[in-house]
């Protein structure tokens, strides 16, 4: 087996967010697809959330359940292991992506050269498909959107709807080409039928299935998956062997906690009151479903995330994708600009943390801090606060030798120096007034600026500094002396 990068979730060669966004912003088709799809999901979500009088209380309950589970994560994980093992399951622990992939590949080896898969962001994170392929096992994605991504050799762009960036006609072209169906129509029914026929053969002939998990229930050792298409149910019931890969963050303490989670998740994710398919299974049952069940509990830096009290609630995420659908940044660029399987606001906080802040440093800045994500998050993750906190970690994490000379750091220090004394500040205002002169056009506005500031004037004009600052106006109104007073400077300067 060829080695698989341990942190596949953020491709080390991927460009930073502003650069990756540029070609995507030029893609009118992509942006139409995004606006259309996110608009529909947002509308559905708003309707079914709006009908819940206790939605805010539910969010708080969800937040508490997640926080409690993570506070006692060690205990709950061991409890899960005990109960799952007692029910006939096999529990494996994986420190990182490579370990998880190795475990799965070993287990899947006795399959017929292929495995069927339920959509799983966790196995996207570990790059499992490539590891399987390298071992001569072909993974067959059975989720419609994942199938589209797989057939198109594409990358997922959304955590719930991985092919959100494709529209119906594009999917029709792809299916027609890859399934050899030249006469295929582009109605949803036509596409679903083509996928159904394509997949049915796989379901009936593949003895091993691989899944992720929505929740791990410590109390019972059970695993829960919710889905809309029924492909998951097929994978969970037909094969002889089932292998699930789940981040350790997926734990919830009690079966009853599903009461809260299964109200929050479907409404936030797909705008449904309930998912069409809700599966919970515990170990194995003779004569019913897979007779061999393995679960791989994946760390992959999650314990590192827990270490930072200001950012650990990132792990509360239940991967509903609501923050992506509502994010005005994501809605312009789509998921691929984030260079990670986790895109949008959750990706902007999760990806750099899982990469130990060594990659994805531009992601915490890929936000206007508008707060729309926090407003919709079903478990109340304060994403803007975490973004700001991680920006701080990006700045302090710069290599020592460079950090003081970083151009942005120089500007920030200079600005702090100016703001630390009001005489300096009004001096700077006067200097600005003189410095701007060559740039003022006949319209009275600044239409082009040099270097970094030119990024402002690419799309916007700028009104120049006026002849008088407010403090000068106020002073002129009250005093006869032309000199601004300084006696009121606080003493600590």
């Amino acid at each position, binding site marked *: 087996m060829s080695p698989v990068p341990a942190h596949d979730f953020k491709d080390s060669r991927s460009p930073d*967010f*502003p650069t990756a*966004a*540029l070609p995507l*912003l030029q893609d009118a088709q992509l942006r139409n697809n995004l606006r259309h799809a996110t608009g529909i999901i947002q509308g559905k979500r708003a309707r079914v959330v709006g009908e819940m009088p206790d939605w805010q209380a539910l969010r708080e309950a969800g937040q508490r359940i997640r926080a409690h589970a993570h506070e006692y994560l060690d205990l709950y994980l061991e409890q899960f292991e005990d109960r799952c093992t007692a029910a006939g399951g096999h529990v494996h622990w994986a420190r990182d992506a490579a370990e998880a992939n190795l475990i799965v590949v070993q287990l899947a080896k006795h399959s017929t050269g292929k495995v069927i898969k339920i959509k799983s962001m966790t196995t996207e994170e570990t790059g499992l498909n490539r590891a399987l392929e390298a071992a001569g096992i072909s993974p067959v994605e059975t989720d419609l959107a994942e199938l589209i991504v797989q057939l198109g050799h594409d990358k997922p762009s959304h955590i719930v709807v991985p092919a959100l960036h494709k529209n119906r006609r594009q999917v029709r072209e792809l299916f027609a080409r890859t399934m050899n169906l030249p006469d295929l129509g582009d109605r949803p029914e036509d596409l679903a039928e083509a996928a159904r026929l394509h997949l049915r053969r796989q379901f009936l002939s593949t003895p091993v299935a691989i899944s992720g998990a929505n929740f791990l229930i410590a109390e019972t050792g059970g695993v829960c998956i919710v889905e809309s298409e029924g492909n998951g149910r097929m994978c969970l019931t037909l094969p002889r062997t089932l292998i699930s890969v789940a981040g350790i963050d997926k734990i919830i303490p009690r079966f009853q906690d599903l009461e809260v989670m299964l109200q929050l998740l479907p409404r936030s994710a797909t705008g449904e009151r309930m998912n069409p398919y809700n599966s919970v299974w515990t170990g194995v049952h003779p004569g019913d479903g897979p007779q061999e069940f393995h679960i791989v509990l994946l760390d992959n830096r999650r314990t590192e995330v827990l270490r930072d009290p200001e950012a650990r609630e990132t792990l509360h995420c239940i991967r509903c994708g609501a923050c992506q659908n509502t994010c*005005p*940044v994501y809605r*312009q*660029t789509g998921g691929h600009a984030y260079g990670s399987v986790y895109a949008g606001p959750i990706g902007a906080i999760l990806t750099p943390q899982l990469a130990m802040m060594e990659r994805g440093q531009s992601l*915490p*800045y*890929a*936000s*206007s*801090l*508008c*707060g*729309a994500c926090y*407003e919709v998050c079903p478990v109340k993750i304060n994403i803007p*606060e975490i973004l*700001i906190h991680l*920006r*701080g*970690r990006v*700045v302090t994490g710069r290599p020592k030798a460079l950090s003081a000379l970083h151009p*942005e750091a120089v500007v*920030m220090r200079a*600005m*702090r120096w*100016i*703001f*630390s*004394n*009001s005489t300096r*500040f009004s001096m700077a*205002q006067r200097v600005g007034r003189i410095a701007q002169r060559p740039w003022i056009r006949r*319209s*009275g*506005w600044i239409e082009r600026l040099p270097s970094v500031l030119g*990024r*402002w004037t*690419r*799309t*916007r*004009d*700028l*009104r120049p500094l*006026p002849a008088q*600052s*407010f*403090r*000068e106006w*106020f*002073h002129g109104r009250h005093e006869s002396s032309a000199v*601004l007073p*300084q006696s*009121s400077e*606080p003493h*600590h*300067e």
Partner: protein
Amino acid sequence: MRISLFITCYNDTLFPEIGIAVVRVLERLGHTIDFPYAQTCCGQMHYNTGYQPEALPLVRRFVEVFRDSEVVCVPSSSCVTMMREHYEKIALASGDRSLQSEVAALLPRVYEFTEMLVHRLGVEDVGAVYPHRVTYHSSCHSLRNLHLGDVPIRLLRNVRGLELIPMEAGDLCCGFGGTFSIKNSAVSGAMLEEKLQYIKKTQAEVCTACDNSCLMHIGGALHRQRANMRTEHIATILASDSDSRVPSNGAR
């Protein structure tokens, strides 16, 4: 009442007319304005860009300048957000007990301009006259952080002659985002383009807001596109009365 004005660094430098308008409205209502000259900046830019330690001296400065104020009026929701959401955290991280207690004592006396009018002074009609078609942009900070709700709308509804035109997708961010507008200028521009569609659709003459930062961004694009619309801070509108020339937001 004696009201201390924190004009904010960017209004002081770029938009003095906003401060003039605030002074005019509050004086018209019979209050006295105090402007401590030692004030500079709330520290928001440093804090939100990841330079949190650089913000600490600016927090200290703000507290020292305004600690004795009866109330502090700030015509910028994003600066008030910075104070309400982060000052306590910054003070806590500094380990300075006296700063912590001073922040805690001062914050309840800090108000965004429209919030101060309606919630502190109990005024919804400031006696303004502004015979124009106006649409209101609720900035993200005023909407989701300060929860101003319909406070600015109530003030605008009481302005004589003003026709208020509702905007679709009112909770959509305009794409300014502070240093985001420079660091991610292309995405910021794309967000602005989407927002502008809704703004222009209102066919108002003026787009107003509680934040000049958003308006600088929106107004800059309207000017670039030679659109038949301009931006005005809400203070400018509320300061306009029948016998005053409308202080205007610059050349057009």
